[in-house]
C-alpha cells in the first residue's frame, strides 16, 4: 500500500530535504523534514539514512546533529565527504532541497543522560563531533551549558565543522570552555594531556567521540587513574569494511534457501563471501551498525571480525557484514 504515494512507505518512513548548509569544504548539514511523525531520538544517537542512487538504495548511519524536539519538526545530519565513497560525495555535492530520503531506525547507546551531568567533559575529533553537537545544542537550549569543557581535535582548523556555532556557545555561555586543537601543527592528543587541558577530568562525566587511537588512549588513562564508569565512548570506523584484523580460520557457508555454497578464508565476512558466490544479501553500512544484513544462523559458529569473539547458536540472528564463518555454517538465506 505504501507505494500509492512516494512518501508513504510500507516499512520505513521518508523525509524531505528542506535545507542544505555547507559547514566546510567537505561537509554539509542536511536538514530533513520527516513525512510521518518523527519517532524521536536522544542526543548522541545515529540515524540510518537511505538514499537512492541509480535505482539502488544505499543505507548509511549518520549521527543526528539536531537537538530533539525542534520547533519546525526537522532533524539534521552532517555528513563529511569520504573520498572514494558512494553516498557521502552525493550528500555533500549532489543533493538538493526537495529530494526525498529514507529514514531508517534510530539507534545508539552513546547518549546524553536524561538528567544532564553537572560537570561534563567532551572530547571529539574530526566528524566525531557530530553526535556531541546534538548534545551541546540540547544543553544550550536548556541553559545547562554551565560547567562543560570541550576538547575538539581537527587536523587543520579550516576543516573544523560547527566552528562558528561553538564560538557562539563560548560567548553566550560562560560555563562552556572550548579548546580547539589543530593536530597537523600541535600534534595528536593523548590521554596523558588530560591533566593539563582539564585538571579536574576525574570529577567529570566524560564523553569521547573519536577514532580508535584517541579513544583507546583516553580509555587507558581512565582505567589507570580515573573512574571508567564516568567514561562514555562512541567509536567511528567501527570495523573497517568487514575485514578486521581478528581473522579466524574461515569455513564454508551453506545458504539453505538459495542452495548456494560460499566460503570465506577467515578474513571475509559472510556478506562478501556470499556476494562472491553470486548472492546479494540486502545490506546497509557494511560496518555492523545498521543491521540491514541480519540473517538467521541455522548451524555452526561464527567469528565477529571486529572483536575476534567466536559465537553463535542455531536460530540466532547475526549480521552478515561483520561475522565470518568459523568452520562450516548454515544460514537461512
Amino acid at each position: 500500500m505504501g507505494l500509492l504515494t512516494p512518501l508513504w512507505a510500507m516499512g520505513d518512513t521518508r523525509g524531505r530535504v528542506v535545507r542544505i548548509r555547507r559547514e566546510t569544504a567537505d561537509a554539509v548539514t542536511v536538514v530533513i523534514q520527516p513525512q510521518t511523525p518523527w519517532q524521536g531520538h536522544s542526543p548522541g544517537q545515529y540515524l540510518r539514512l537511505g538514499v537512492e542512487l541509480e535505482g539502488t538504495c544505499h543505507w548509511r548511519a549518520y549521527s543526528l546533529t539536531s537537538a530533539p524536539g525542534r520547533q519546525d519538526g526537522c532533524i539534521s545530519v552532517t555528513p563529511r565527504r569520504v573520498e572514494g565513497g558512494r553516498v557521502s560525495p552525493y550528500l555533500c555535492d549532489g543533493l538538493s532541497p526537495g529530494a526525498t530520503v529514507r529514514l531508517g531506525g534510530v539507534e545508539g547507546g552513546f547518549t546524553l543522560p536524561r538528567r544532564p551531568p553537572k560537570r561534563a567533559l567532551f572530547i571529539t575529533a574530526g566528524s566525531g563531533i557530530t553526535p556531541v553537537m546534538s548534545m551541546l545544542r540540547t544543553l544550550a537550549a536548556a541553559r545547562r551549558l554551565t560547567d562543560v569543557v570541550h576538547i575538539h581535535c581537527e587536523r587543520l582548523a579550516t576543516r573544523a565543522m560547527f566552528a562558528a556555532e561553538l564560538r557562539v556557545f563560548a560567548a553566550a555561555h560562560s560555563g562552556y570552555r572550548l579548546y580547539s586543537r589543530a593536530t597537523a601543527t600541535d600534534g595528536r592528543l593523548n590521554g596523558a594531556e588530560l591533566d593539563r587541558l582539564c585538571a579536574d577530568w576525574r570529577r567529570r562525566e566524560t564523553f569521547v567521540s573519536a577514532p580508535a587511537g584517541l579513544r583507546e588512549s583516553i580509555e587507558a588513562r581512565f582505567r589507570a587513574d580515573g573512574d571508567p564508569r564516568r567514561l562514555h565512548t562512541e567509536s567511528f570506523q567501527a570495523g573497517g569494511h568487514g575485514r578486521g584484523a581478528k581473522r579466524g580460520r574461515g569455513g564454508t557457508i551453506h545458504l539453505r534457501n538459495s542452495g548456494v555454497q560460499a566460503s570465506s578464508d577467515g578474513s571475509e565476512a559472510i556478506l562478501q563471501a556470499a556476494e562472491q558466490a553470486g548472492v546479494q544479501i540486502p545490506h546497509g553500512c557494511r560496518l555492523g551498525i545498521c543491521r540491514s544484513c541480519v540473517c538467521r544462523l541455522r548451524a555452526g559458529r561464527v567469528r565477529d571480525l571486529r572483536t575476534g569473539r567466536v559465537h553463535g547458536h542455531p536460530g540466532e540472528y547475526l549480521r552478515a557484514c561483520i561475522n565470518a564463518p568459523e568452520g562450516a555454517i548454515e544460514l537461512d538465506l
Partner: protein
Amino acid sequence: MAVSAPVSEGPLARLDATQLGYLSRDLDAIRNDVTARLGAGDARYIRSVIRRQRQLVLVSRALLLGSRHKPLWLAGTAALSVAKILENLEIGHNVMHGQWDWMNDPDINSRSWDWDNASPAASWRHAHNYVHHMHSNIRGKDRDLGYTLLRIDPEQEWHPVYLFQPLYNLLLMAFFEWGVALYDLNTPAMLAGDKPREQYLGELKGIATKARKQIIKDYVAFPLLSGRRSWRSTLAANFTANVIRNAWAHSIIVCGHFPDQTYTFSEAEAANESPGGWYLRQLLGAANVEGSPIFHMLAGNLSFQVEHHLFPDMPSSRYREIAPRVREVFSRYGLPYNTGPFGSQLAMVHRSILRLAFPGGQPRPKGGSGRRRLAARFRR
C-alpha cells in the same frame, strides 16, 4: 520412470567442452552488460507496476462493494483478476527470484516479499528458485509440476493413474495455487524419510497460516464489507478472480516447459555439468511464447522463459531487450530457440496431456536434433 538411455538424443551431448566454454562466455557477456546498465529507469518500472497494481486492487475491491449489480460485478471481477495476475507473475514471482534485490530496497526484496498466493514465500523460494531452476527438466530431480504429477514426456513410464490426468489437470488449473503449495511440501519425501518430519510440519504450519489469511481476506472480510445484499456476489467474484488467476498462471507455466520442442534430461546427462552445459540445458528445457507487450507483462515476462531460465535473477523488464541477442548467440551455435504463439504452444501441451494419459507415445520431432544444424559457426 525410465531415466537411462534417452529415446531422443538431445543437442546437449553434442557441444564439446570448448564450445560450451564459448557459449558460457557469450551468455555471461549479455548478463554482465545488462547488470552494468541497471539503473533508475528499472527501479521506476517495478515501482510503477506495483503502484498500478495496488491502485487496481483498490478499484476492484471498491467496485465489488456493489457487486449485486451485474456491471459492477463484471468490472470488479475483471479488475481483481488482472490485479492478482500482475501481483503473482510480474511482481511476486520476480521479486521473490531476487530480480530487484540490487535496488537494496527493503520493501521490494526477495527476503521480505510475500504474495497473494497460498504458497508461503520462503518454502516457495526454495522449491522454485533452487529445486526447479537448478535442476530444470532433469527427470527425477526437477519437481516442477510435470514429470511426477503429470506424464508429459513419453519417456516417463506409464501408470494407470495417468488415465485421470486430463481430469485432474483441469482441477489443478482451477486451484493451481493450492496445488503448488501442497505439492511443494513433498509429502512422499517425508513419508520415505528423505525430508525431516520437523521441517515438513513447519512448512505445513506455514501453509496453514497462509491459507487462513487468504481465506479470511477473500471469502470472509471483503464479502462482509459488501454488506447483507452483496456478500454472496462478492464472494463469488473473489472466487472467480482466484480461479482466473490460477488458470492463467497454470497456462503460462505449462507453456514454459511442456511444449513439444522442449527436451528433458536424465541425471547422467546433467552430471558434472559445466557452466556452459547448464546454460544449454536451460535453453533446451524452456520454450517462449510470443505476444504483445501487455501479454508479456501479464505473463510476468515468463513468456521469455528461455531468457528467464538463463538469467533467473535478471529484472524481468530486460528479457525482451536481450531476447534477440540470446537468439543470435544460439543460432551461431546451431542450437534451437523454442518460441511460438500462445495458442499453439498451449494446444500442444494439452494434446500431450491427453495423449500421454494412455500408454506409449512417441517423442515429438524437436528442433535442433539434426546434426547438420550443429555445424557451429564460430566467429572467434
